[in-house]
């Protein structure tokens, strides 16, 4: 049905519309446009030749190729692992399936740059604990593993990204109508044939869509490559942007290179998003019904226990081992000492929590920035979603486009755009303050909020509002009494969808931080860079505790809400 038209048009509707457009233009459109402008215009003139020249510079195209190479490797590995585990926990008689399913989602909680840090401590060729153990105790001649390599980087990213595929494929396998497979079985197909001919083609869209998500994420991923690559000269696009901006202290050439790289990243991301939407729209067969069926389980027979052991070993190796390492190293008196009782202390944790201004600032900054970004984005998101979903206005397609744009604009691009836009160009200079990080966070996370709020608003039928109007409520009253209570869950969802990632964010803030405006992510990263490995690990440990606590509280809270 159609949206209610407010009684005397002008006023509220126009204000809401104007405000929505204003917010999105200032926060999203300006930074992105300014990047394109800087990438293609030199001295006020369109200059494609110059842009191409930058792309042909060795370090630029190497970074491009590296980004592609790493992303491809990560995508392939994550897809195989994610699909395999998804099949294992949905379609087999593996013991403890529900618990396993939850455990495989834990990597989502672990920021991958912290994982990278842990693996560096374990597998760096000289100082890594595993390598040293193999050399000193087992007596091998040289280091066995080297984490500072492409395979190392890919492996670490895979460990923390595969849940994207896992979660999608799990969902598809569970929703799939089992009669499709049963009828194939009745027709005499073997289980192998069914899997190959029926099951896999049916879940292929989900696999592909998860894989593309990983591709997108990995192309634009900063943390792991920064921790494991920069030291040995492996750069991808985001780390090269970071390097250019930081080295040069804002020289024109380096900023231009940054914007060209950013443009390439945006175009690639847009292409990936486009392919993904095509895959999803083609893959929407009716057979994946909304209901939950009881799928047929494959009997693992003799493999049942070995598979369980394999899963537990995988989780132990990719989650428990790195986490324990972080906490242990964080407790060491000096980095490199063996983990013995006399070497371990809580002093580091006490120091960074209570005494050291740098880390205390970082924790405070991350928490306040996360809260502020989540609150602002949540309220702006409700308003903009309302315009998009409910109002009959011309040009709201632009709003939708602008709002969803950040989904395909990587964090480092937003950060770069924000630097260009808000360091004095338009008379406002907030560079080196927390405000510039806040603006970037709002741009980065607006799409999350719009998604959650639009979904909630779409559930609120227009007739609910009209019923209130007919009952004697004015438009404002109807919004307050009917719409707001009904979209509140969507608003909460938006809040948490923003607060949690903002808490552990590195990619954006690492380009924007100033002397007193480090976030937790930046502090961990820079401490590690400066060789303060022990403090870096201790802070990472504290970050993990904050993240896990917040996630648990939120889980409790939302579960209590849905139960009531």
């Amino acid at each position, binding site marked *: 049905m159609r949206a209610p*038209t407010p009684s005397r048009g002008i006023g509220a509707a126009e204000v809401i519309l104007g405000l929505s457009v204003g917010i999105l233009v200032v926060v999203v459109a300006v930074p992105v446009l300014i990047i394109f402008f800087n990438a293609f215009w030199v001295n006020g003139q369109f200059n494609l030749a110059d842009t191409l020249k930058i792309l042909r510079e060795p370090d630029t195209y190497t970074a491009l190729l590296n980004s592609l190479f790493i992303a491809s490797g990560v995508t392939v590995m994550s897809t195989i692992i994610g699909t395999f585990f998804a099949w294992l926990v949905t379609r087999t008689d593996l013991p403890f399936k529900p618990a396993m399913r939850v455990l495989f989602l834990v990597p989502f909680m672990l920021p991958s740059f912290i994982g990278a840090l842990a693996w560096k401590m374990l597998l760096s060729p000289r100082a890594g604990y595993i390598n040293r153990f193999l050399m000193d105790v087992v007596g091998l001649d040289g280091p066995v593993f080297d984490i500072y390599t492409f395979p190392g980087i890919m492996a670490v990213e895979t460990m923390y990204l595969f849940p994207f595929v896992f979660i999608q494929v799990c969902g598809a396998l569970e929703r799939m109508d089992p009669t499709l497979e049963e009828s194939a079985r009745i027709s005499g197909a073997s289980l192998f044939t069914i899997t190959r001919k029926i099951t896999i083609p049916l879940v292929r869209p989900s696999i592909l869509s998860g894989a593309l998500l990983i591709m997108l994420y990995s192309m634009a991923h900063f943390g792991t490559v920064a921790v494991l690559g920069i030291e040995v000269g492996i750069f991808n696009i985001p780390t090269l942007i970071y390097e250019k901006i930081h080295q040069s202290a804002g020289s024109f050439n380096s900023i231009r290179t940054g914007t060209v790289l950013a443009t390439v990243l945006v175009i690639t991301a847009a292409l990936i998003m486009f392919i993904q939407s095509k895959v999803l729209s083609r893959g929407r067969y009716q057979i994946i019904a909304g209901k939950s069926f009881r799928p047929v389980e494959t009997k693992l027979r003799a493999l049942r226990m070995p598979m369980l052991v394999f899963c537990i070993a995988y989780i132990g190796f990719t989650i428990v081992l790195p986490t324990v390492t972080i906490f242990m190293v964080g407790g060491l008196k000096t980095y490199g000492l063996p983990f013995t009782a006399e070497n371990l202390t809580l002093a580091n944790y006490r120091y960074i929590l209570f005494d050291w201004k740098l880390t205390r600032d970082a924790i405070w900054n991350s928490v306040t920035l996360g809260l502020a970004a989540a609150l602002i984005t949540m309220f702006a998101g409700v308003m903009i979603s309302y315009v998009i979903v409910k109002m009959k206005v011309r040009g709201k397609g632009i709003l939708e486009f602008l709002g969803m744009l950040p989904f395909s604009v990587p964090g480092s691009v937003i950060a770069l755009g924000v630097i260009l836009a808000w360091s004095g160009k338009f008379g406002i200079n907030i560079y080196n303050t927390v405000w510039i990080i806040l603006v970037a966070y709002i741009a980065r996370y607006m799409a999350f909020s719009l998604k959650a709020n639009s979904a909630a608003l779409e559930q609120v039928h227009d007739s609910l509002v009209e019923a209130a109007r*007919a009952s004697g409520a004015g438009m404002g009253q109807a919004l307050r009494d009917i719409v707001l209570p009904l979209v509140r869950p969507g608003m909460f969802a938006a809040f948490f969808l923003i607060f949690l990632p903002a808490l552990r964010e590195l990619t954006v803030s690492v380009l924007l931080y100033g002397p007193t405006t480090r976030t937790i992510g930046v502090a961990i990263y820079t401490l590690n860079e400066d060789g303060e490995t022990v403090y870096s690990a201790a802070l990472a440990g504290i970050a993990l505790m904050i993240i896990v606590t917040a996630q648990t509280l939120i889980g409790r809270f939302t579960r209590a809400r849905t139960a009531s």
Partner: protein
Amino acid sequence: MASVQLQGIRKSYGDNTVLRDLSLTVNDGECFTLLGPSGCGKTVLLRLVAGFERPDAGSIRIGERVVSDAAASVSAAPNERDLGVVFQDYAVWPHMTVFDNIAYPLKLAKVTQTALRARVMDAVGQVNLRGLEDRMPSQLSGGQQQRVALARALVAKPSLLLLDEPLCNLDAGLREEMRFEIKEIQKNLGITIFYVTHDQEIALAISDRMAIMDEKGVIRQIGAPDEIFEQPADDFVFRFMGVANFLPVHRQPGGGWVTGGGQRFPWEPDGDACAWLAGFRPSDVRLGRDGEGLRCRVKRASFLGAMMDYLIEVDGAQFRTQIETHAALAQGLMFGESEACMVTLHSVHWFKAGEIPEGRR
């Protein structure tokens, strides 16, 4: 209580003109039904009366008050029109209890707490929901939710009640029950009802007067239900009011002949035109084995339990009729397929042949 007067209403969405120059009066205190096929613009008309949409031209009066006038740019907001509306999808607020849903209009009207409670409980009783006041809508069946919507629309004693297909999502039994209840409430309260539906059965059952609207948003006939059923203004109305049979009849000097064959048709249209269609209901057909009438053939015989359903062919044209099974047995009228039969008709409505598009017959 109030009358509703629509004067020269036009409404379009983009290039699509839904209503053009439509005028209609609903009398004070009557139950008026607007009946039409889906997508004909009847809901749009109801939304115009409610104030959810504004007409592009024309004016709307509720009682003495002009609530919409396109020429004078007058448009009262829905909350200023003193209405009750019941929506097709119930529109019961899912976050409020039954009591709070029904109480909402009174709260907005600033009714005191004690009076509010009494009136809500009164409305709850009226729609037979006693004992369910504290339930959430998700704990109610579709029929119960519909009653909540009805009670909510009635509780503030509006002068006009608008109902938009309120029964079409209910199953057959409930639909019948609610139909009686709406009629009952209307009688008790003397409220004016404007009811929009595509279901001719409901319309016939509850209306004091009704209007038939065609796909183009044009009103074909207004009148009492029996009037419309017995004296349809045109073939559209005739067809819309139930199963319709049409036989092409040729008029020649000396009488009508069934087109496509040489049989004399026992009725004669009055009018000059040549080609006619004789319209009649299955219940207007009298079957026989011999005697007077048209010579026909049973093309298909279906046993439906209490009834026999026959598809009958005469000179290339076909029509349907039904006969009670026990009557068929008693009178020897259990025909098999391809058997010959004789047909006479109780009554016939004449329509000019050109008016009815092919494939519609």
